[in-house]
């Protein structure tokens, strides 16, 4: 019965989303919701044979699939027309709904049946299913003409950023409120080294490493003087850094570097003796426009692989490139987490003084977290610059840092899977859901609501001006965070460690209560 509830949630949510996107979206949502439902059930089911588990999942899957299709059809014939889009019962609608139903039921049962496998095989099976969906997604997307891939790519950029920041905040426990600065440094390194701005056109595959290296260098330079600063103060310092970097990039439009010997030192000495300067000042760089200021650097070079140049209108190669970068990122971070360095991050987060007693160098350990965290921002920045082809300082401001922090916190501090889910949820909400909701509301307003309000022009104007959910982006962010912190402070998918952090006090209290009770009795 309780499983049916899960089915209802998945079915209704998927169904409601079809209102926004229409068309083939019901099939795509069926695939995601089916796999998601299967995974959700799979965790809760007792172990048994595969067939039994699939059978157990069947009624739940049928409920979910049925609800989704019912809502989708309701959307097609009642809701969509209210927004001005008339759809007839054509073959696409029929095919999309039938396929969506099959995908939902089939995938939910398939995934649930993994519970019948032994633990190792269960994990492999899940990985294969996930890989299949990840690989198939862009092709299905193109086929269905949904154009979700470009938004997902955005989400994946923030997944990398979240994974990098997670090293600093989650593993080493250092607050960094200016992480987007490293994202900017990666992007600008790429922009400067592969654009007509300076007529330098380095290969993307080289530039991405340079960008990462540059970000790491700045992580090091920022970290070295500031890391002895603790806790809240570190937050403020990084906040300042995050504010300064975009401003610097905005203002590096007229760079002149004088050679000090001929420009200052020799003339200075001459003037000291009352003579007028006779040496010509040599300018190493004179009036160079390094970053193009607010105009931004544009167009930035694209990756070329085996003679094929990535194109803006074909998102599939970009998608696989960023998936590759994420896989590399996850691999590296997992290796580090299990290493001696990972251990010392944990220890520093727990107790710096005790760590020093164990022989851990606190400054070096924190510096490593800062610089390595920045590396991944460098990767993300390079990809972003090449993908968007133009970069502006305003993209990397404080709000970007905060969004990345939200990805980490919402997903689950200290947990790789959590951060991935956090990034996908926040950024698809921001890039895909909110714009779709905006169009949907606009249609609904123009076609149904505003005409109904025609008797009251003031109200009509107020409603039409404020019914744009994108205006409330940060309000929604804030609300989500507040709610999360109240309900589930450890994030969507918490790490065991973090759960312990946030609930250790309760645990400790429980043990102490136990003991004091015992003591009273005794």
């Amino acid at each position, binding site marked *: 019965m309780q499983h049916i509830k899960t089915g209802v949630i998945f079915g209704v949510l998927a169904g409601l989303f079809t209102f926004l996107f229409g068309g083939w979206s019901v099939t795509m949502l069926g695939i995601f919701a089916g796999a998601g439902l299967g995974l959700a059930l799979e965790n809760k089911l007792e172990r048994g044979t595969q067939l039994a588990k699939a059978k157990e999942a069947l009624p739940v899957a049928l409920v979910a699939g049925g609800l989704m299709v019912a809502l989708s059809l309701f959307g097609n014939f009642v809701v969509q027309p209210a927004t001005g889009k008339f759809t007839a019962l054509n073959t696409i609608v029929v095919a999309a709904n039938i396929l969506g139903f099959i995908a939902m039921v089939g995938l939910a049962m398939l995934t649930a049946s993994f519970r019948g496998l032994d633990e190792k095989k269960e994990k492999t099976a899940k990985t294969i299913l996930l890989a299949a969906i990840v690989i198939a997604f862009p092709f299905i997307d193109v086929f269905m003409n949904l154009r979700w891939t470009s938004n997902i790519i955005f989400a994946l950029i923030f997944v990398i950023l979240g994974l990098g920041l997670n090293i600093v905040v989650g593993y080493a426990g250092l607050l960094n409120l200016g992480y987007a600065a490293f994202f900017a440094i990666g992007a600008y390194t790429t922009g400067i080294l592969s654009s007509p701005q300076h007529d330098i056109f380095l290969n993307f595959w080289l530039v991405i490493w340079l960008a990462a290296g540059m970000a790491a260098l700045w992580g090091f330079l920022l970290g070295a003087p500031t890391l002895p600063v603790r806790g809240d103060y570190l937050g403020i310092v990084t906040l300042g850094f995050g504010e300064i970097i975009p401003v610097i990039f905005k203002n590096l439009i007229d760079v002149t570097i004088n050679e000090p010997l001929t420009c200052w030192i020799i003339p200075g000495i001459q003037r000291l003796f009352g003579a007028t300067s006779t040496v010509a000042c040599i300018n190493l760089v004179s009036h160079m426009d390094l970053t193009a200021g607010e105009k931004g650097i544009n167009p930035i070079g694209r990756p070329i692989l085996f003679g094929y140049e990535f194109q803006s209108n074909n998102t599939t190669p970009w998608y696989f490139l960023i998936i590759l970068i994420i896989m590399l990122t996850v691999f590296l971070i997992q290796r580090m987490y299990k290493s001696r360095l990972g251990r010392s991050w944990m220890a520093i987060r727990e107790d710096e003084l005790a760590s020093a*007693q164990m022989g851990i160098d606190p400054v070096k350990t924190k510096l490593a977290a800062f610089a390595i965290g920045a590396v991944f921002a460098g990767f993300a920045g390079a990809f972003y610059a090449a993908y968007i082809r133009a970069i502006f300082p305003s993209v990397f401001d404080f709000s970007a840092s905060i969004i990345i922090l939200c990805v980490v916190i919402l997903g689950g501090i200290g947990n790789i899977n959590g951060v991935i889910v956090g990034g996908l949820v926040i950024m698809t909400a921001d890039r895909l859901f909110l714009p779709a909701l905006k169009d949907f509301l606009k249609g609904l307003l123009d076609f149904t609501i505003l005409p109904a309000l025609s008797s009251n022009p003031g109200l009509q104007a107020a409603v039409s001006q404020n019914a744009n959910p994108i205006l409330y982006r940060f309000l929604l962010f804030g609300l989500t965070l507040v709610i999360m912190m109240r309900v589930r402070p450890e994030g969507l998918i918490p790490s065991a460690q973090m759960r312990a952090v946030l609930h250790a006090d309760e645990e*400790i209290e429980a043990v102490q209560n136990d003991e004091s009770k015992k003591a009273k009795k005794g």
Partner: protein
Amino acid sequence: MLELKDVHTYYGNIHALKGISLTVNDGEIVTLIGSNGAGKSTTLRTIQGLNKPRTGTVTLDGVQLEKLPAHEIAGLGVAQSPEGRMIFPRMTVLENLEMGAYARKDLTSYKDDLEHVLALFPRLKERITQKGGTLSGGEQQMLAMGRALMAKPKILLLDEPSMGLAPLLVELIFDIIKQLNNEGTTILLVEQNALMALSIAHRGYVLQTGEIILSNTAEKLKNDEMVQKAYLGVE
């Protein structure tokens, strides 16, 4: 092996150690006794590099420690079971013990050492997967000591290892200290329980408001009239 010469340590303006000189020889148990606030913990913290002496020298086997950062001193074979325990509350007992061995270069005997520590403290073995912060006070004390042992130190600094333990366990801890010493570990022991400390130590120093006022063999200190009056509670 360990030698402090005229060490002065300050906390801001507070002159906590006013010229401490002491030695600990290879294979000895040396105890520091003194009333609250005398500077016993500060002495241990100074040896470990958590506080830096303003003047004076600390040498271990000829290596000068007083300028080195704490983590390097740990690498040279100094381990402490500190006052207030300072265990990692969110790591398990096992992970805490593993952290103890962090500074070791030679890990060949790691498994045996772990088993040895768990044999000394069977309580820790029972709670091996429990989070350090959820252990009882006494168990945390054992963990702090076990963690210091995992470092296989040249010199083990113990700051009130019997604090918060039930009387039976206090005796057990002192037996363990004795046993460790018999196995060859050099120990500098700070204790409130001066009688117990003097009965297992070879030598002792008496500390008063940051100065050493007396030093002698443990046997002689135990029979010293002043010590008896001030620290052993004998009228």
